[in-house]
């Protein structure tokens, strides 16, 4: 069969189950495509050499009458800051260039238990710090829609590989928009769940009070299927909650019965967007209104302070979380003999890339004596304020809409020398991380061949409503049927 790589999760699982093609045939085609296409976009850091062996095992089990698991035979790409037993996990950093984890992250274990095959590890900004995937020690990832443009970040490899059809779906991590931003720039669907829905066990910590693992797919339905498997309580991450009553995939949203959804359009975020993005958002909203949704302008005043609050908290936590990298128990080759402790530690940590060093230093600054109250405490109070304001908005609206990113994808290198300009890309996405609420980015159009994404946010643990309505909106827009020509 030809072009198996274009199939969605349901088609792959059913195709293998019904004997239309084997798991081995599917994985072979994917690997062949990665070899052909990935040299253009550089979305993979490591390819799993055992993927074909695992595919053959699935085929063998099917031949012996096995009841097929919900994700049997699909291939999942994994952001390279999520631990995979026996498969290198570099965080796109020279600090971890040879690090092979001895265990699987909970999300990986859950995917494997349902028959998914991990096809490889995907590129990111070093330690997930960045918004374009230009800060990787393994070279930048290019936007599959236009190779001269950035693919967004930090889960750039996760979004670009899904858009380029190099895996069925992928996992990313989202600390301030790192799943949604690249999904918007690459015209795929990216979802960040409520804080506590997915276990962070095995995710290399950057800013642990903000980040969640999320999924990226070519359709909302694919993203839902991955979330269904990876969500839920995990004894290894005590911030996770029981999702027994929160099944996000058990029923479809009934448009006929629920056509009175009220949608708030966040004016500060929409008006702050560049003209083409702004126009695209409003033409999408017109289409949604045809489905019977009511939408009106709404305001989130505290959004003005969100980015300053986010970067204060994120850098503070980064400076603490990354203190563990001393290069003694694991890391690159640097013999500790004849070194004094501090000298060794500082020399080894000089191997972090520019953006990581900057964020650790800014984090040390905002936490330092005399500045703690002025920055960190204030940032935490702004975070509370945003949460209260959003909670009140959700009493009035079912969902809130905004552009995912206020600008179109831009040229590689354009913002690399100005960290602050780079940070401003996250201005719309950080809200969901500060408030701990779920948010999705879905593709809604193109301008000059460059993708535009819509962000939809819902109140905490309302993933079912959010994903079901996103699926309806996705159908009304109907653009994710074409993929980049690579």
């Amino acid at each position, binding site marked *: 069969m030809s072009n198996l790589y274009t199939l969605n999760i349901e088609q792959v699982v059913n195709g293998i189950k019904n004997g239309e093609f084997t798991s081995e045939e599917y994985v072979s085609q994917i690997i062949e495509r990665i070899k052909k296409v990935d040299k253009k976009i550089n979305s993979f850091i490591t390819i799993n050499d055992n993927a074909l062996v695992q595919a053959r095992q699935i085929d063998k089990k099917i031949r012996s009458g096995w009841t097929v698991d919900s994700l049997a035979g699909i291939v999942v790409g994994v952001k390279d800051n999520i631990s995979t037993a026996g498969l290198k996990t570099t965080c796109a950093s020279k600090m971890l260039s040879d690090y092979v984890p001895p265990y699987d992250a909970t999300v990986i274990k859950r995917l494997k238990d349902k028959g998914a095959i991990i096809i490889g590890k995907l590129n990111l900004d070093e330690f997930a710090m960045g918004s374009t995937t230009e800060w990787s020690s393994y070279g930048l990832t290019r936007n599959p829609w236009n190779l001269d443009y950035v693919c967004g970040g930090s889960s750039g490899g996760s979004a670009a590989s899904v858009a380029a059809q190099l895996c069925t779906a992928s996992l990313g991590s989202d600390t301030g928009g790192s799943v949604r931003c690249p999904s918007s720039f690459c015209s795929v669907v990216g979802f960040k769940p409520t804080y506590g829905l997915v276990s962070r066990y095995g995710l290399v910590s950057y800013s642990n009070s903000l980040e969640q693992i999320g999924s990226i797919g070519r359709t909302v339905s694919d993203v839902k299927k991955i979330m269904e498997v990876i969500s839920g309580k995990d004894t290894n991450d005590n911030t996770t909650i029981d999702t027994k009553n929160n099944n996000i995939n058990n029923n479809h949203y009934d448009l006929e019965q629920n056509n009175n959804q009220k949608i708030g359009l966040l004016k500060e975020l929409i008006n702050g967007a560049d003209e083409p993005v702004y126009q695209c958002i409003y033409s999408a909203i017109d289409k949604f209104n045809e489905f019977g949704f009511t939408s009106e302008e709404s305001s989130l005043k505290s959004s003005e302070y969100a980015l300053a609050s986010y970067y204060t908290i994120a850098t503070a936590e980064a400076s603490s979380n990354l203190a563990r990298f001393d290069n003694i128990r694991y890391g690159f080759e640097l013999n500790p003999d004849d070194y004094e402790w501090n000298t060794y530690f500082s020399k080894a940590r000089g191997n972090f890339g520019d953006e990581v060093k900057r964020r650790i230093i800014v*984090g040390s600054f905002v936490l330092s004596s005399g500045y703690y109250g002025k920055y960190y405490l204030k940032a935490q109070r702004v975070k509370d304020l945003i949460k209260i304001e959003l909670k009140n908005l959700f009493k009035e609206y079912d969902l809130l809409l905004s552009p995912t990113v206020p600008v179109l994808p831009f040229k590689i290198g354009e913002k690399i020398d100005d960290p602050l300009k780079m940070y401003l890309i996250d201005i719309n996405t950080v809200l969901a991380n500060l408030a701990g609420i779920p948010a999705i980015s879905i593709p809604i159009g193109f301008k000059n061949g460059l993708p535009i994404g819509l962000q939809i946010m819902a109140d905490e643990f309302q993933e079912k409503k959010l994903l079901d309505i996103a699926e309806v909106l996705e159908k009304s827009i109907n653009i994710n049927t074409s993929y980049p020509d690579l």
Partner: protein
Amino acid sequence: MITKDQLKHLSKLSKIDLTETEFETYTKQIEKIIKYLDKLDEISFEENNPSLVLSFKKLSELREDTIIEPTLNIDQIAKNLKDKFVRGPVIS
């Protein structure tokens, strides 16, 4: 305002060696970042401003304190191991 001396102190606190070129570029960039974070000064909170009563009550539940046998064999991956100890640089 961040001075080069302050940055030197911060890099020492963060235990990160910086080159002269890095000091030059980072001073300007970090100053710009901190200036942006100063935006937090524009917002004032009254002393007894009701802060959010976090809805994360469930998240604070503690797990049972049970003994679990370690399942990870870190000997296979850890560097600088010697007789079950980790060898590090000299602490002066």
